């Protein structure tokens, strides 16, 4: 995929021949960017509470980068998100018994039914949900970094209209226009422009985690459903 822009995941996949340290380092940074989805997976799969989930997330990192877990394992296709799920499943299998016991109460009592507890499917859904959120948060951050200062008015309009908190009263373009002392048409135009940019920022964010255009489109469909 010569034409595809060099991305974090794409580069990593190209790093098959790079030395282990370089690959690990790059992989670690990528994983750390998606700390929250990993945390939510851990929360749903193994943890008793949030704090416990944070510890487990940290354990996961230690397992991942402290040992040889990723040395020989670089996916040959698909998006980083899928690879990450694979890693988490793998981590879970290795540590399964301990982890389930942890969830059940810190391993104080013997839990004879351990093996009867099925591998939950919810953790992956939790990861997907957090992933979806993380991509949006990061995209909005990108947008904010570029536009909040450079185009304060445009940003303000976007903030007032599209970023208003969930549950806040709905506004019309005219109300926003009046509030900011601009024309209604300006609100429409600025919103249109920033929304397009939001879309691009999200795609840029997703692009960091895929290696090919096809994977990008696939991830995009998974996120946006279109």
């Amino acid at each position, binding site marked *: 995929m010569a*034409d*595809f*822009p*060099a*991305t*974090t995941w794409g*580069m990593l996949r190209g790093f098959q021949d790079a030395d282990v340290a370089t690959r690990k*380092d*790059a992989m670690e*940074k990528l994983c*750390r*960017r998606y*700390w929250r989805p990993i945390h939510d997976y851990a929360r749903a799969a193994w943890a008793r509470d949030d704090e416990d989930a*944070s510890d487990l997330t*940290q354990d996961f*990192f230690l397992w991942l980068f402290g040992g040889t877990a990723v040395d020989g394992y670089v996916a040959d296709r698909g998006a980083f998100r899928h690879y990450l799920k694979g890693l988490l499943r793998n981590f879970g299998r290795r540590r399964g018994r301990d982890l389930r016991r942890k969830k059940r109460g810190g391993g104080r009592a013997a839990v004879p039914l351990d093996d009867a507890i099925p591998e939950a499917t919810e953790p992956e859904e939790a990861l997907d949900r957090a992933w*979806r*959120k993380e991509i*949006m*948060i*990061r995209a*909005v*951050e*990108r947008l904010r*970094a*570029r536009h909040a*200062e*450079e185009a*304060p*008015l445009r940003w*303000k309009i976007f*903030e007032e209209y*599209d*970023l*208003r*908190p*969930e549950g806040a009263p709905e506004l019309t373009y005219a109300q926003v226009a009046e509030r*900011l*002392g*601009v024309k209604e048409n300006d609100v429409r135009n600025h919103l*249109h422009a920033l*929304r*397009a*940019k*939001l*879309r*691009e920022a*999200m795609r*840029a964010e997703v692009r*960091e985690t895929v290696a090919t*255009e096809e994977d990008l489109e696939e991830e995009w469909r998974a*996120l*946006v*459903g*279109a």
Partner: protein
Amino acid sequence: MSEPDLPIERLYDVVRGAKPEGSFAGKRLAGFEVVGVLGEGGGGIVYKARDPGAPGRFLAIKVIRPGLRSEEARGRFERERALATELGIDKGFVPLLASGKSEMGPYYVMPFLGGGDLRDRIKRGGLGVAETVELGVVLARALGRAHERGIVHRDLKPENIFFTGEGRPLVADLGLGKRLGPAAASSLTATNEVLGTPLYMAPEQAQGMKNAGPPVDVFALGAVLYECLSGTPPFVGETFLEIVGRAVRGDFTRLASARPDVPAPIARVIERCFEVDPAARPRDGHALANELEAARRGGGRRPYLAIMACLVALAGVAFFLRPRSLEPPTRRGEVPAPFVGPGVEAEEALVAGDPERAIAIATSALAVAPRDPKTLCVRGQGHVLRLEHEAALADAERALELDPREGWALAIRSLARLVTDPKAARADAERAFALVPDSPWVLVARARALESDRPGRGRASIDRAVQLAPRMVWALVERTRVGDAKDDGAAATEDADHALRLAPRSSVALVGRGELRLARGDFKGSHEDLDRALEIEPDSLLVLRAHSDLLRREGKDDLGQADVERALAIAPRHPQILEQRAAIFLRRGDDAGAVKAFEELLQVLPDSAGAHAFLGLALQRLGQLDRALEEETRAIELAELSAWPWSNRAGIRLQQKDVPGAIEDATHSLELSPDYREALWVRAQAYAAHGDVGLAVADLGRFRDGLPRGPEGEASRARIEQLMKSLEARNPQATPR
């Protein structure tokens, strides 16, 4: 807005409705291979494309924005193309390399400028005065050349000013430009339409484009220069009307208070650009350039400022000339890989002891990826190297929020709190070490923390850091400060020299050697290093503090104080700088000033034993003995094992005629430090007052034996011996050693 507040699902709905915007991946444009979008402006989108003639180099191709292909937009684009043909690189404008019509509409090709735009530069922190004036002159000349051809830019802003790889500024984006005079009749924007960015817009332009002549560009350039210096444009507000209203009223913060180091004549020229009456501004670009040059020639408030200004300008140019392994990270629209690019480059700058550059790169990178803990660490470490502890602490805390086990962030927090909370700092350093035992950054921080506990304890840690990172300037410099390294001649000298060989222009290395030389009494050598450091980084607290310390020890208190005041203007509550100021007052014998300064320091650092002890000393000199006693007692509570406050308190008690108390305190002091001369001196006086002449003479004998060799010591020795004799004469039984 904090993240959890984001209406995620609504935003997804919004995105589903948004149309794709000029997707470019793999696209070809007029035969060029497009690799990304650089930005938008003046009705066009600018793509980055490979230069087919030069592998590894890039071009910028501007096409009209999709959706804006109205007759008017097209006309505007065409006009820009025409104006750009006329105003080339020799005139100070981004040149037009080729143009034509493509499947995406009309396009024209410009070079891709590797030096980034002025917006990036401002984001990395305010520019120096000299650098700004130089920039102003060059840009004003460029505008002047356009003005003499009857062309007005009308949309000058930091985003439209680019730097070549060599650091030369060029004006871009003539999309709103117009030709004055007869040709204006055909000008598409010669209507009452309001275009341009309000932040840099002259009032008459806000009332309609037809009013815009060269003074409009003068206004904009003045506003740009103002922003370079102060960090914000002169007229800001939430709405267009608010901003323009301020401009009409002339309602802005004077440079004298926004940026006090700007010489008055230069501030006057810049502020004259904001006159509401266009006729009251410099007439055009050339007039503004002339005025700036005149102000620069005669503008220094102090004679050495002019010299410094030149040096700063050189440093600025050097900044752009320095070789770069990668393109600057925040060309608009580009998305840097968050760790491979700026991270490595910024960390390299840190290793080379160039915190200013590291901070700049990290700040740019953070604008794109604000949640990357490593980049936050790079910047935090940069702040530590400039002694900007509050900023360092903020970055470290943020990094730790994102990743509580980021060892480097713990190390930075340790360094930032070492003065204010040494105990917590030591705990952080040890935690950092437990997490990442092989990080040189962590090892140096740990060495510092251990040293603050007991000199010499940091030795093993610092040696390991140097072993792991033999080219790290900071580690080498810190090694000269460990234990008694300063007194140890060769090894410390070699480290300091080596650091400077690695990085001859590093403020960290220069301060390191300058301080080492100072500790050894080599004032001249110290001056050489610290003066140079000041030239290179005139606003670094680290440099200012070291420089003022040198001047203080030379007895040039006034000059030292000037450094300190400059540092305090940057960081008004910086404990180490406040300490320096207080020390200067004390040395000058300005005890009232010293009392005030130490009180200020204690507001920031309430548990500093040293500050309490010094305050006690100054109060004692002012005759406020009760308060002095309180301060020394507090110092003793805080640093029980330090001989010094005990001895100070002994002196105060003696003055209060509490002779037994004085003897007790002085004895305690001598138990802690057996040859402490101040304590011997006080106790001798106390014994004499108590009638124990023999003991007094014995203490004086010990005092005499501790005097330094050399002429100065000899004189004191003679006086002490005379004193001993006269005491013995009063009490023949006394038998001195």
